[in-house]
């Protein structure tokens, strides 16, 4: 039976999140969450247009 999500601190080695058979350290969970956040931001945050090359700037004049 799947137990509810819980924070496990059985020893001093670190804090773990347990959800049934799934157990992951809080540190690893935070790192994975940060990576997913970075991935989503990379998709939605607009990319700067930059200064362009000298030829581009000449064309714009």
């Amino acid at each position, binding site marked *: 039976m799947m137990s509810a999500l819980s924070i496990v601190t059985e020893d001093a080695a670190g804090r773990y999140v347990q959800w049934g058979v799934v157990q992951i350290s809080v540190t690893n969970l935070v790192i994975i969450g940060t*990576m997913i956040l*970075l*991935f989503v931001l*990379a*998709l939605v945050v607009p*990319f700067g*247009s*930059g200064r362009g*090359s000298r030829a581009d700037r000449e064309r714009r004049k």
Partner: protein
Amino acid sequence: MTAGAGALSPDDTTDPGNWTSRLRRKLEGLVPPGQALPDRQPVYVASWIYVFGVLTLAALVVVIVSGCILALGGVAWWHVSSLGLYINSVHLWSVELFFGFMVIHLWGKFWMAAWRGKRAMTWITGVVLFGASIGTAFTGYLSQSNFASQWISGQAKDGLNSVGIGAWFNVLNPGQMLLWHVVLLPLAVGAITALHVILVRRHGVVPPFDADPSIEQEA
């Protein structure tokens, strides 16, 4: 002989059967002219998701440079001196960033189906590179020369023995693991990285699904 106005080009003077000229032509043909270090890209490349490949490469450069400095100082130096401890940390954290950037790069390319348009070998070399990088990092954790490396090797030996490679790749032999970490695996990672980048430059970055193939504009 000095090169003058009437000097012949290398192609005119060399024997087509000469292996040096054959190798030169091979190297010159690795990427299309002007594509080795292009300063212009298709307009759809102006997205942050296209940045993670080169971020991975930048992290790899820091990994290699900090690793070379650690090799100069040696084990006692990186465990004891403050500068050695600092360079050891730079080596560790650049590896963490290397893997973080590489996995985000992998997610981006997977959801973009980056093997499209005859880019299968680019994708496959990336997959092999991911595996080789994991092996390099693993032997690095075994080469820390502390209780963590001892514990990791003790945990890993049974799994590796069960698949029959323990006789050739013995995680309980720190000398062998250090040499795999600083010679064999970095050579493999370096060579596959070079091949991967050459393939990217040959075939170009993969366009998004909704990119108009007729777009000529470049940014």
